């Protein structure tokens, strides 16, 4: 078993509305799994099913090869998008309470909290009430509470919202560190740059159906169009341009460069190799820039959602 979490054709209805339709995902152990989708696609419903907050109407979810059961609550840490803490409760008491609900003993929770509070340098917040903290500070507390019981599976729903760039980086590093220590992470976000940065695998849910699933690199390979971004310098621009246009499919390109040269996106067919294109170009002009166009996660997201 290399998958920590497997969902088998999970469906969920709310009255007449089908929130999830036969969705299957497999989250490999030790991966960071991006769960993507437009607003209202059904991501949160799936996450809630994994957390046993709601039950699926059809299908099953397995954690470590076992059907989900109440004991699994200890193995999961969940940071919901709609987050909050008891406002008038003190930070320390609150953390202890939430940790005990996850099955930690009081003394164990205390020593782990001390470790995290020292690590994040928030030790002097222990006796403050949540309402005395800023939103970002409260989010830090919430992060600590989520990971405190060392769960096998961490689920983060928009973990960086509300953080300034410095703290967002801090949290990102902590997530990566937790992965190093053996945790598996499900990561739901609308920020494609963090998907690009963090995720090994992604699944895209759209209108209650899973429309895309796999390793991020595989998907990118699948979505690439054999297009190359090219910057050329030549004394006879018009001639070179028309020669290229006669041989390949050409689109204008924009990128920053030092020279005022020819900038093109050149699409080659399946039978042509990048080397063929390069030798074709070197024969005609001086090549300053030659990059394969790789689709970004954002491009893939938009394209997939539009096509469905």
């Amino acid at each position, binding site marked *: 078993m290399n998958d920590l979490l497997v969902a088998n054709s999970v469906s969920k209805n*709310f*009255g007449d509305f089908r929130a999830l339709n036969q969705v299957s995902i497999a989250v490999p152990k030790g991966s960071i799994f991006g769960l993507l989708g437009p607003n209202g696609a059904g991501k949160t419903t799936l996450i*809630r099913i994994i*957390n*046993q*907050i*709601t039950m699926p109407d059809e299908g099953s979810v397995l954690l470590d090869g076992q059907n989900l059961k*109440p*004991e699994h*609550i*200890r193995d*999961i840490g*969940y940071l*919901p998008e*709609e*987050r*909050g*803490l*008891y*406002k*008038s*409760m003190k930070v320390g008491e609150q953390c202890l*309470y*939430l940790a*005990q*609900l*996850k*099955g930690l003993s009081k003394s164990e929770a205390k020593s782990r909290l001390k470790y995290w509070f020292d690590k994040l340098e928030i030790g002097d917040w222990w006796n403050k009430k949540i309402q005395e903290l800023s939103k970002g500070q409260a989010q830090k507390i*919430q992060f600590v*509470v989520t990971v405190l019981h060392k769960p096998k599976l961490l689920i983060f729903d928009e973990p960086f919202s509300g953080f300034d760039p410095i703290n967002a980086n801090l949290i990102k590093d902590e997530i990566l560190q937790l992965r190093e220590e053996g945790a598996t992470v499900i990561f739901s976000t609308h920020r494609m740059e963090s998907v690009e940065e963090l995720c090994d695998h992604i699944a895209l849910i759209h209108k209650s159906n899973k429309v895309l699933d796999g390793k991020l690199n595989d998907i990118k390979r699948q979505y690439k169009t054999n297009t190359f971004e090219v910057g050329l310098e030549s004394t006879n621009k018009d001639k070179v341009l028309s020669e290229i246009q006669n041989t390949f499919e050409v689109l204008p390109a924009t990128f920053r460069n030092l020279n005022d040269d020819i900038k093109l996106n050149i699409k080659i067919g399946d039978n042509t190799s990048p080397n063929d294109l390069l030798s074709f170009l070197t024969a005609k002009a001086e090549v300053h820039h030659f990059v394969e166009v790789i689709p970004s996660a954002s491009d893939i997201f938009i394209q997939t959602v539009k096509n469905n």
Partner: protein
Amino acid sequence: MNHLPLIIKREYLTKVKNKSFIVMTFLSPLIMIALIAVVSYLSQLNNDKQRTISVLDETGYLKDVFQNTENTNYTNLNGLDLEDAIALVKEKEDYGLLHISAVDSLDAFSKNVKFYSEESPSLSIISGLERKIEKRLREKKLQKDGVTLAQIEASKTSIDIAQESFDGEKSSKIDNIVKLAFGGIAGYLLFMFIIIYGNMIMRSVIEEKTSRIIEVIISSVKPIQLMMGKIIGTSLAGVTQFAIWVVLGGVLMFIVSAIFGIDLTQASTPQQEIMNQAIQAQGAQAMAENLITAISNLPIANLVVAFIFFFIGGYLLYSSLYAAIGAAVDNETDTQQFMLPILMPLILAVYVGVFTVIEDPHGTVSTIFSFIPFTSPVVMLMRIPFGVPLWQQGLSLLLLIGTFIFAVWFAAKIYRVGILMYGKKPTYKELFKWLKY
């Protein structure tokens, strides 16, 4: 994993440590006692005031009728004419002038009695005067028919019907009053408890929703555990508050009456006057003895056990509904439309208790309402002092428990879905749909 004790502990401590809860706990008995003290002090002040009423009786029939009492002096102005008498009363700033003009016969009397005063006189003074005059006139009329004063005195009798059930259980009027008092207090206590602490549960559910912590919590515990923990924790806080109120109220009452010498229990109200008359009629000693027998006549064991069960059952039934309402809405202002269906049966229960149980504790209406689960806790608690067959109590309790389980199931459904719903206020139709999620 059983988190219930943990949740109960948190709910209890949060409530008890809450500032406004502490303030209310200690301030309420103070305010109550202060109010009672002020009212009784003022009414005593009122009673202590001396007033003088002048009497101008031109008939001579009412001689010796008006005897000076502690608070009222009567001045006889016989011999003066009306205008002089009024002027004199005005000058002396007396309370008023009672004028009886000369009459030919006793029958014409009623049209010739008048009371003159600066301000309109108090009702009790006028009716007091009326009673005195009526009594004298009745005596005069009887004497005219040849009945002597001694015979009139001898004809006065006082009846206190002794009551006995077929089983030989003796009781009296005072028994019924005691029974009513016990039942009424029990029922009313439950009513107050449900309203105060049901609302508290509702607010605490809403708070969890608005602070958005709910999703974190229910990823660790089952919603029904959270709901039950809330209900139990809040109830314990409520019991604590009630206990402090009782103790503090008692102590304060004692201190206030000791320091200011105000007898709070003797606040003179019309009811108490009647009571006092009854006591005078029977003799205080006999009255106290009757009271003690009346209390010992009560089915005490039955009362205590039934109180505990019906109180818990009724309270849990209603508080789970309060929790469901809290889960269904986003803020307190939206609760109104859902509160009505809860308050209606509760208020109905109190009305049925007050109006029909007093009239006929075992009549059809009281019996039926003591079986309907939403009214049974209050109505049954009011009926039990009068002796209710055990099978009736058992059946009523069974129905209550059944409904309670159903209500918890229902509330848990609403709760489970509702706590994760934000934004719009749900309609009843939507609530019904949630039951099927």
